Structure formats: C-alpha cells, structure tokens
C-alpha cells in the first residue's frame, strides 16, 4: 500500500520542468533585450544561420551580429553560470553549516577574492600583452587562500572541530582580509575606483573567454554538489548524529566546502562580488517547496541562473544605455521579493 515516498514529499514534476522553462525563457529574453536596438527576428535568423544545414541567412549586419554573439550572448551565459554557481554554493554552505545566514562568501572567499583583486590592481605588473589576465587569477587564488586560512584556523581550535568554530574562524579571517584589503586600497588610492568597480560585481565586460574560464569549474563543482545533495540532509541533524549514521561530518564538510569554494572562487574571479544571490535563491526555493536539500540544491541551480540573468536584464535596461551595478539590482529586486516569499510562507526558518 505505502509503496513510494509520501506524495506530499515528492517534488511535482512541474517544479523542475517549470524551473528549466524559466531558465530557457530568461536566456531568450536576455538575448533579445539590450540597449542596442536589434530586432528579435534578426536575432532569431542569426541564431538559425549558425545551425548547419538549415541554410537560413542572417538578416543582421556584421556589427549587429558581433553585438549579439560577442557581447550579449556571453554576458547572458556568464549570468547563468554565475547565478547557478552562487546559488548552489549558497545552498551547500547553508546545509553544511546548518545556518540559514551562510552564503558562499561566509568563510572568507569574498574577502580573499577582494584582497587578491586589490593586490592585482594595485601592484600587478602591466599585463596588457599577457596571455592571461592576472586579475581573475589573483581573485581566484585570494578566495581559495581565504577559505583555506579559515578552515585551518577553525580546525586547529582546541575546543573542537565544529561548524560553529569554523564559522567564527571564517568571520575572523574575513575581517582580517577585508581590513588588509581596505588598507592597501587606501594606500594605493589611485586604484580606488577600479577596486570598487570590481567589488560591486559586474557582468559588463563579459566575453566568451570569461565563459570558457569558468565553465569547467561551474560544471564540475555544481555537479558534485548536486550529486552529494542527500548528504546535506544527513548533515542537518548535527555532527554527532550524522557520524553515527555512517558519515564523517568533518570530511563531508571539507568536501562540500571545497567544491562550493572552488566554484565560487571561479565565478567571483570573473564577475566580482555579486551579493545576495547565494542567500536569496536557496531560501526562496526552500520556502516555496521543501526543506530537503535533495530538492533545494537542483532547483537552486536552475532558478539561480534565471535570477541573475533577470537581474542583469534590469541592470542594463532600466537606465539604458547606462548600467546599474548588478549587485545593487540583486539586492534591490531580490530583497523585497524575498520578503514577500518569507511573509507568505508557512514554513519555519530557524
């Protein structure tokens, strides 16, 4: 009689289907909408012309074609990658730390990336002729170093290796790195504007090279986090119980934090510190569907991508052709939306 999971606990198919559809729709909208006035038909014909054997002739001239394929498309794709990665990483952090306020920057990834970026901007060699841009590399390394520092500090605390000591270590490391970053920024004040521009986060200058740079990280890291989503549910009963359920909580935590950090570091390196996404998206999913990470993690992946693409559409159209920093949009649009979801939901967040 009771053969399967209770029906109320099964995620209705239309949630996954709807989230996937939303992603497709936002990507198309992202491709169609922009400050350059290019007709939707032109974009469609140009897209079809790229599919072999269809023999459709693009109705766009070279410049319009460049705008769509060299500027707008990579920006949309990067938005999907960054939004998905930050959301999945955020859901993993919340599960691992059993803390609803955890976001991907909790353990010093943000502060470390900021410091790395500042170092590269202020002291980096002139890299104009280089094959790779040192700025994302420095931000990436900074994010990793920040989290490793927090992790080492948290796990050498004598009172025990718990999630709480790790969070406290993260807070200490983040405060230290941020202070260091602010200090350097003030010393090298001619770089102030560039550093601030980077910290605010931006997809303004995204190109395919940025997409290629982060794609492998996002694919591998989000695949790992989605694959291990069931363990996040086990972790939610606390370390000692999880350990008697056959897990090594500290190892699981290391593994999940490791991949969440790697992915976060990669996207932060190319997009700067886009805030709010990692908190708002997983919580919205949780409030609308279920508290189980088996559902939250994959849905965050799909909805996070859509959310950031939508936020970016707002960022580049509201004051077109001027832009608004995307971090401002994610907070301005995301926070009130989240408040509505929070008020309407029956579920408890504690």
């Amino acid at each position, binding site marked *: 009689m009771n053969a399967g999971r209770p029906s109320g606990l099964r995620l209705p198919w239309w949630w996954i289907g709807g989230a996937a559809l939303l992603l497709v729709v936002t990507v198309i909208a992202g491709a169609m909408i922009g400050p350059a006035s290019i007709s939707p038909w032109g974009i469609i014909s140009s897209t079809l012309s790229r599919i072999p054997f269809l023999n459709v002739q693009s109705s766009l001239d070279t410049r319009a074609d460049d705008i769509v394929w060299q500027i707008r498309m990579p920006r949309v794709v990067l938005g999907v990658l960054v939004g998905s990665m930050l959301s999945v990483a955020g859901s993993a952090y919340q599960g691992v730390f059993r803390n609803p306020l955890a976001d991907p920057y909790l353990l010093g990834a943000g502060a470390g990336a900021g410091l790395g970026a500042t170092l590269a901007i202020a002291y980096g060699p002139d890299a104009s002729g280089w094959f790779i841009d040192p700025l994302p590399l420095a931000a990436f390394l900074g994010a990793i170093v920040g989290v490793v520092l927090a992790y080492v500090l948290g796990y050498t605390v004598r009172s025990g290796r718990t999630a709480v000591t790790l969070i406290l270590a993260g807070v200490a490391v983040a405060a230290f790195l941020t202070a260091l970053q602010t200090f350097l920024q003030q010393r090298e004040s001619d770089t102030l504007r560039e550093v601030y521009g980077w910290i605010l986060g931006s997809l303004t200058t995204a190109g395919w090279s940025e997409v290629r740079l982060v794609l492998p990280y996002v694919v591998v890291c989000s695949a790992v986090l989605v694959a291990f989503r069931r363990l996040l549910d086990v972790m939610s009963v606390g370390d000692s119980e999880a350990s008697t359920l*056959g897990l090594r909580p500290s190892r699981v935590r290391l593994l999940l934090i490791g991949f969440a950090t790697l992915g976060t570091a990669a996207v932060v390196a190319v997009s700067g510190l886009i805030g709010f996404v990692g908190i708002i998206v997983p919580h919205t999913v*949780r409030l609308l569907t279920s508290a189980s990470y088996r559902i939250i993690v994959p849905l965050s992946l799909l909805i996070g991508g859509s959310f950031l693409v939508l936020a970016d559409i707002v960022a580049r159209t509201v004051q077109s052709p001027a832009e608004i920093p995307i971090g401002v949009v994610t907070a301005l649009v995301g926070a009130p939306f989240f408040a509505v979801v929070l008020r309407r939901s029956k579920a408890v967040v504690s």
Partner: protein
Amino acid sequence: MTSVSVSSVGVSYGRIEILSQVSLSVGDGRWMGIIGPNGAGKSTLLRAIVGAVPHCGSITLGDTEIGNEDAKSLGRRIAYVPQRPIYPPGMSVFDFVLLGRTPHLGLLAAERAEDIAIVWESLRSLSISGFAERDVASLSGGETQRVSLARVLAQQAPVVVLDEATASLDVAAQHEVLELIAQIQHEQGVTIVSAIHDLTAAAQFCDELTLLDHGRVVAMGSPEAVLDEAILGSVFEPTIRVIEIEGSRVVVSLRSQGSRHGE
C-alpha cells in the same frame, strides 16, 4: 548477534578526565541501563561507545574493536539517539526516518524502493505512519521520541544506544516510550545501552544496570543488586529509600527531618 564490551575506557577533554577505567559488558539482546547523578559521565560513555568521542581502552561490538571500523560499517552496527536530538525545521517525519538508511547507501546513491519500504515499516511499527508528511520540528515530545526510535529501527542496527530517551516526558508518555523500546528489544533482538535518570523505571525495564559516579563504575549487576539503599545513598544522597511494590523496586528520596521543621 552483538554484545557490547567496554574495557578500561577513559575519556578526557584536555586535562579534565571525564571517564576513567570504565569496564562493562552487555550481553546480546540485553538492555543495559546506565545510571548515576548528573555529570557522572553517562552521556560521554554512550558517545564513546558510538565512536563519537576519542577514548583510550577498548570498546568492542561482538568481536570487532570500534576503532577498526569505518564510519559506515559502524553506522550499520550501532544506532544512536542523543539526549537532545536536532529535528531540522521543515524536514518531514518521513525524510527524517529515511536518514536511518544512510549507512546502507553508497555516498552518491539514491534510496532504493527497499529503503522506502523499510521506512514505512518502521513508521507503522511505532504507529506514526499517519504523520509521515508532518514537519519533525512541529511534533510533541512523545511524538519526537517515536520518530527518533523509528529512525533507529530503519537503521537496522543490532546495537541501539539511547541517551535519556524519556528525559522531558510526563509519566505516562515516559512509560509508553519505554514500552516501545522494550518492544523493539524483544521483537528485533537488539542490544540496548541507555542512560536513564529515572531509577524506578530503570528497575522495571533494564536487564542490568551500571552505576557511574565521577566517571567511574561504582556498581554493576542486576537492578536488585545495584538499586541498594547503601550504594545509592553513597552516590546520590543519604536520604534515598528503596521500597518494593508488586515485586518491583521503587526508588524515592525522602526529605530529611531537619528541613521539615521550617514549615
């Protein structure tokens, strides 16, 4: 078929010694009650047995030293309910009980139909299949104990370690939960080690008792042997009295004569 054997076990946090030279053994299918005053080291002993705190000395399940087992195979052999379990808000009763299947699954594997069936079975045998979809964080004290026991059942471990399963329950609910544990003990043939603060209940349900004080074993044996006025009086307070009602020992603490004068 698993017995539990603890020999010369010590646990310390830094320089503070919580347990020292604790030895006890629990026969297969028996229920061992760990009693003693607050701070005697009962919870620590249980946590050492489930491998959650580092210890010196030896703890074996059957004939395997727990330190030699990986976390997963240990999880298949021993189930544990802490004194104050965490019931994650928003998690359904079903999903919570399903966590008991974790040691039986590969790291990346999803639950099989068999696991789902075992969860339903566990819910039914504790009469809580009706609220499989309820939020675990919204349940009453007695209900959450049943949910935790259902997870223990789903884990299908031959040894069950319970830390004060009835601490916050009223008399009737406490009795009900203890009956359920006894039922699990007899129907599944599991070995139970539980910390229990109610000495009268311990006398009725446990097969054997170990009395701990300041991290050392003070007495061990049948409830009749351990629940002795002289022994308990030395550990708890001298005013303790043991009386017998319908063949079962009842432990009470009388108010001393001196303090009654004030009224």
